[in-house]
């Protein structure tokens, strides 16, 4: 008996889960297909948006606005079944009536950016209504997480600060959404390790645990485009004579290093230089001392290659003034590097494709929810 549903969703990570959540709320039936055995194996979301590693463009302003605490909470909270705790420097240490310490924490920090052209960046941010705070010298250096100003300070050190921008406990958020969707979808409707997916006129056919499975999706197949499904999409578009439909994917690999610091790191700040973002790595309720520094940077060429180590050591040695560093963790992910967009391929089973299902988690949630509501309409 083929599986029947209104919409079949193909993809990994948060985006298909959020879409499923939205569709179920609207009373539609869903079939969730993931080519990986682990829903989040691809790890395509980032806990924060890697803005500023470049020039300020109009879309950058919108991304930054989305990262603001109030806006982020509006985007994330409705899609999360439980509480989302908020942490900021101001609220730290204040007693509250009840806190769910296992909930994902949304941390509001001040983001301190060292742009290539300070004045130009200041004006652009001001024009965008973002009210940047200028700082220089020691005041700016102290705000940059991990900066060892005692070993030396660049007198030209200047930074622009933006307050109350957020990052989130990504694993907790993801697992919470997964758990919520799992309670609403039976395990026959959430299938992992699927392969050999074919879109036929009669419906869908794929392999799951060695067996062939057939499914019918009344409103079509939605594909959440990440590198994991790229090769399938390429073949599918070719089979439909739509080779040029989707943009080329340069692919950007991101490396998230976690370094052990000798000195405590200010948890209320995020620092962004030309090469990397740096922030105190915290999970859950922030507790002293904060000794792990997360450094997020795009990999140049190969992951963990010579260029990566060169950049990392340049950032750590030349910029942060550390004499040595200890690597605690490295997480890598490859993102498509294409602009968020939507495409459609008509047919007996219409296929809709969404890009932008990877990267900063707030953007992923926002795009996935809007796509889901537009898709049904």
């Amino acid at each position, binding site marked *: 008996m083929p599986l029947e549903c209104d919409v079949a969703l193909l993809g990994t990570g948060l985006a298909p889960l959020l879409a499923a959540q939205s569709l179920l709320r609207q009373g539609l039936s869903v079939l969730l297909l993931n080519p990986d055995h682990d829903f*989040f194996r691809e790890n395509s979301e980032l806990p924060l948006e890697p803005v500023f590693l470049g020039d300020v463009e109009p879309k950058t302003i919108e991304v930054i606005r989305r990262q603001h605490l109030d806006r982020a909470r509006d985007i994330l909270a409705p899609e999360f079944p439980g509480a989302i705790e908020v942490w900021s420097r101001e609220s730290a240490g204040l007693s509250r009536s009840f806190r769910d310490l296992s909930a994902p924490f949304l941390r509001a920090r001040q983001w301190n950016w060292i742009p290539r052209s300070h004045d130009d960046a200041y004006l652009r941010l001001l024009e965008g209504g973002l009210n940047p705070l200028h700082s220089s010298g020691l005041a700016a250096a102290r705000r940059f997480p991990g900066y060892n100003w005692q070993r030396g300070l660049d007198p030209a050190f200047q930074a622009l600060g933006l307050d109350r921008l957020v990052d989130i406990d990504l694993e907790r958020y993801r697992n919470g959404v997964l*758990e919520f969707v799992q309670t609403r979808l039976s395990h026959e409707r959430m299938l992992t390790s699927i392969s050999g997916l074919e879109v036929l006129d009669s419906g869908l056919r794929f392999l799951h645990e060695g067996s062939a499975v057939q499914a019918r999706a009344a409103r079509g197949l939605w594909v959440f485009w990440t590198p994991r499904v790229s090769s399938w999409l390429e073949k599918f578009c070719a089979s439909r004579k739509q080779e040029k439909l989707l943009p080329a994917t340069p692919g950007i690999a991101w490396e998230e290093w976690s370094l*052990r610091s000798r000195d405590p790191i200010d948890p209320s700040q995020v620092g962004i230089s030309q090469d990397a973002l740096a922030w105190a790595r915290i999970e859950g309720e922030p507790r002293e001392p904060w000794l792990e520094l997360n450094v997020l940077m795009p990999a140049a060429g190969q992951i963990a290659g010579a260029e990566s*180590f060169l950049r990392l050591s340049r950032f750590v040695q030349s910029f942060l003034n550390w004499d040595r560093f200890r690597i*605690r*963790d490295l997480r890598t992910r490859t993102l498509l590097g294409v602009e968020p967009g939507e495409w459609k391929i008509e047919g007996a089973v219409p296929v809709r494709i969404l890009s932008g299902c990877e990267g900063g988690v707030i953007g992923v949630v926002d795009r996935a929810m809007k796509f889901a509501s537009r898709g049904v309409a």
Partner: protein
Amino acid sequence: MPIQVREGSFDVLVIAGPGVRRWPGLGVRALATLCAEMDLSVGVFGGEGLKVKGVLPLSGTGGVALVEDSQGRIHRVEGRALIRVIEPIGFPDPFEGWLSSALLPLETALQLRKQGQTIWTPAVAILGTGNRALMLGAELLESGVPEVFCIDRPGSPFAGWEVHRRRFETLGGRFLWGAPYRLAKAARMLWDFRIQDEFGIRVLEVAWVVAAGPFSKSDGVREFPPESLLFEMEQSSADSVSEDPEGWALEEQRGRALAVKICKALSSDWTDRRAKKDQLEDELRRSRLQMRRTLKRRDQPFSLEFIGKWTAAPSSRAIRDFPGAPRQEQSKRTVASIECIEDVECGICQTACPDSAILISREQGRFLDESRCTSCGKCLDACPAKIPVLIQELEGHPTAQLTLTYRGRHAFRQNELAVLLNRRGEALGSGKVMDFVEVTPAGDAVGAVFEHRVRVEVPAHLAWEARGLRRAGEVPSHEEEWVMSSELSASTKVEVQLRNDKRLLRNGQPLALALFETGLARAEDRLLCRDGSCGLCEVVVDGVKRLACRTQVHRGMAVQLDAPSARSQQQDDSGMLCPCLGITREDVLARAREGRLSSPDAIRQACGIGDGRCRGRICSEPFRRILLEEGIAAEQWIDWRFPWSEWTLSV
């Protein structure tokens, strides 16, 4: 100085995981050789000069290993297939007190036996009934430890070879079937160990509890994620084949079977290589057959039957009919009898025999060519289980002559009466010692075990029953003892300050060993990894933090150990899974259940298992077993976090 990174790539990349002691092991060599024969490029990274820091899986198949050489250069090496070799520590399921310093992994116990002067009396409990557990038990009994128990859970199949069991029982070792219940300190260097068996709680007073295992059923190879060509292979055999013939055979089979799988996955075009493809298929058939044999033996362990003290007729017939036992030659002269009836993978006696009198064939197993045997006794010396005997059973004679291997701290004397033991260690009667041959010469080592071939005259009816010897009566007086001195002449003792007390320790020995000898070892010292990879055994020496396993004792050093932590003083740590971070079994189960998490990676990240100082060395296997009990597919799961332990880079 800028960090130097060199690039490389291989078809097959074999890397040493954290804490791997022997490199490269037999399995690695077998795997690398077969892959190279199939024209695949193979890179082998590990050992002191090339420390592997971790692996990054690539999307698709294969992975990247980052290796640091002794000059601080980094090597980034890609492999189309990547195999991480591990030496599992093997802790049992947590019970109250399992975090105590008295519960030692097997490798640590063996190191202490070989290198230290640790006290093992009055008794030792060994968890597990595998070959290595039994061999350690036998060794301890021979060295004079009064009691040794091998303990396994009720209903568990016996994991070792019958011949090792035989030797263990002959020496007086005992088996207990129960689950560990509690381990608590009773006095200095003495522990109260309780096990729960069918009768209730049994209390043992022991010096050490050794976790020898095996504690899980695994064929020693995992692949994760599925079809990613990222593997983990266990290297669990001893340093030499005589210490662990089964382990060696298994490891080689494992390496070759994995090599076949990889070669088939990576080599797509066999057009001009028909012969190699046939060789691969042959190899696959052979390794499957061998693995099947091993698994069959494990599922249906063999044991002799007894009626009272006497071998039951079917078993007695099996021994007499065994091709390794002589048929008629023993009625004319002395000849060997090779009595390892179980179908095991061991050819040590065959290799040792200078006259090619012992042969091993696929159909018959081990068999003896009586006509060729010159009763030289080399098979007795070589056999790790000391099973062969030399037998002379002259027709019509009231007595027979047996030559048996005896290992102990005190030698027999000529014409002394020895107690004859059956194959279970029960006394049958007595025999007169005719003469003996030293196999290991007497030395001046304290506590050394001497080996002799002892020829004993026995009543004729005991010729096929008696297979062990024990001294009758008291140990000889001091002047007749073979122990030459009470001090190791090769090393001297120096005075050090250890936790504010002055002590004499052997100069130049690793501080970690000294802690065990003085009874001051902490739970953190148990891994005794020797290369510092676990990073747990931190001490303060002369005001500087160091690792005890990498620090040598020298005169005048001042050593401070950490004060016992609140966690280590906790009364009941039976639920504790991760001692580094204080994560309990209930924490893990609650997190998995409340989040309905079904992926081991997700549960691990949610709980933080393995994020502590030991990076999963202690807790990852018990964690896997908990997940399996919970019905989560964790058998093939591999934790591919990077790096394996904190990696310090100087810039």
